[in-house]
């Protein structure tokens, strides 16, 4: 039918894609282009008139916006920590769970549970843990390690954020790794056992190369999510104390919807964030592709 038509195929194509295209164009594509335009204006949300000011916003960001670059630095640090720690943790849990005979399902269900919960809710719950419950351990049990200002001291609040982010996100990567490990043919392991390879050797020589694709996906997901992190920080520290834990998304949000309402300026910032994410994604896809070809 559709594919056999001699004439009118493009007409049917347009009819069928029109509803999706309308929504997609007005909500995603046009805003992307508008964003580029806004970043070159002094639009401030209150005053309806927008004036073209060229690269003035970008000049200001690059020369005199220390808070933005602090938030960018903080986000980068967060991204590096999360991408490494979350993938290691997820891989470890996946391998550990898959090595069990019975009880696999229970643990898988359990570790995925935090992922179902919004990080706003999770963040508030952990806020309670960090500001109330942990002091119980230090005051009554003498576990002095916990006697720290986890939310109030910027030195520790970074780790608090990492802990909560790992709590909320590891389960997702873990189920992907589990699915990949289950897809490794048993034959390969059996052959290796015959050849005298131990468990650890088999993990590095068989399992790890065979789940390469899952590894690419998980890296991609964790990298992209980490760069746009908002909820955890919002609920746990609100970017504070001061601006010490402010991430880029929060910086942009506050610039636009906080006190100053400088929409044009905030859009310029989000354009920079977009460029950074795009660049890293492209590099990553490139590197991963080359790696896969080599193997």
């Amino acid at each position, binding site marked *: 039918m559709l594919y056999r038509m001699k004439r009118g195929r493009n007409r049917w194509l347009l009819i069928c894609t029109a509803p999706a295209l309308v929504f997609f164009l007005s*909500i995603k594509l046009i*805003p992307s282009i508008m964003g580029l335009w806004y970043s070159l204006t002094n639009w401030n949300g209150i005053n309806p008139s927008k004036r073209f000011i060229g690269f003035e916003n970008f000049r200001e960001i690059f020369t005199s916006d220390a808070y933005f670059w602090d938030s960018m630095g903080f986000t980068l640090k967060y991204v590096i920590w999360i991408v490494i720690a979350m993938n290691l943790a997820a891989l470890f849990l996946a391998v550990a769970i898959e090595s069990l005979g019975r009880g696999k399902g229970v643990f898988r269900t359990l570790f995925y549970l935090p992922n179902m919960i919004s990080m706003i809710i999770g963040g508030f719950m952990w806020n309670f843990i960090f500001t109330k*419950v942990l002091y119980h351990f230090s005051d009554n049990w003498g576990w002095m390690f916990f006697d720290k200002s986890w939310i109030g001291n910027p030195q520790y609040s970074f780790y608090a954020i990492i802990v909560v982010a790992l709590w909320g996100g590891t389960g997702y990567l873990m189920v992907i790794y589990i699915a990949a490990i289950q897809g490794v043919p048993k034959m390969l392991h059996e052959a290796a056992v015959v050849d005298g390879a131990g468990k650890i050797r088999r993990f590095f020589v068989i399992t790890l190369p065979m789940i390469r694709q899952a590894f690419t996906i998980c890296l991609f997901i964790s990298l992209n999510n980490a760069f746009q992190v908002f909820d955890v920080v919002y609920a746990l520290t609100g970017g504070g104390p001061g601006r010490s834990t402010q991430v880029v998304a929060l910086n942009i949000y506050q610039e636009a919807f906080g006190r100053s309402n400088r929409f044009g300026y905030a859009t310029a910032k989000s354009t920079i964030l977009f460029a950074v994410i795009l660049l890293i994604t492209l590099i990553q896809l490139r590197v991963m592709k080359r790696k896969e070809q080599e193997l």
Partner: protein
Amino acid sequence: MRVLRFRSNRLLVIMVLVFFGFICIFPLGMAFINSFKTKAQMFTNILALPTTWNLDNYARSFSKMHYFRSFINTVVITAVGITGIVSFGSLAGWALSRIKTRLSGLIFALFVFSMLIPFSAIMIPIYRVAQVLHISNSLLGMGVIYTGLGVGMAIFMYHGFVKSIPFDLEDAAYIDGCGVFGTFRFVVFPLLMPITVTICIMNILWMWNDFLLPLIMLQSSKNYTLLLSTNMLFGQYSSDWPAILSALILTVVPVIVLYSLLQKNILSGIVEGALKG
């Protein structure tokens, strides 16, 4: 000897997993038991089970956060969004997969490439578009925006899935006098059910737990979603933790119920979505 070592290894693995599992549910558990206490009871022993299962906190936060209204609001937004994503996404994905012309390649590439655009890069322009279209601060408008944001991914997944369906059924339906839409509605769409389930799970979880978009779009509290109401309550109660915790538990309950009912589908849907996306 060998058997013994094997056993102890496994025991170690189980112990480590139990430890991490405990950390997983620790915040939930603490929130749960302290949500039944008064502030004074909480400070005497934060780890203890409540002496009486007092529902006062729940009664207070339930009315203060307009729980029922917030719940319905969230349901409406999610329902509108998922209807748009699935119906428009499946139709477009099918057509793009079946019709091979230069135009279809172009449209498909447009959808796929735009999947790389991060939300935070376009949230301010979206806010502007919503104002111009008069869909900001409205539940229906939120559904519309979610449709626009989510339909690209859905098209990509439907497009891939349609390739695995044989042409014959569509031909037969056409010969029997079904039009294009009839064929799609009665023959193709039912066959797409497996991928539809996956797409529904992914998108419903995303919309239900999304915070930033409603935060910038919904100004009046009568339109608040569950997360926005909880956020508001968190600000108002400041140090009244038992009341806040009861609100958190109330907000988590629908998700936990859903998870315990559809656990298998959710886990497999998530994996499938990640691998295809």
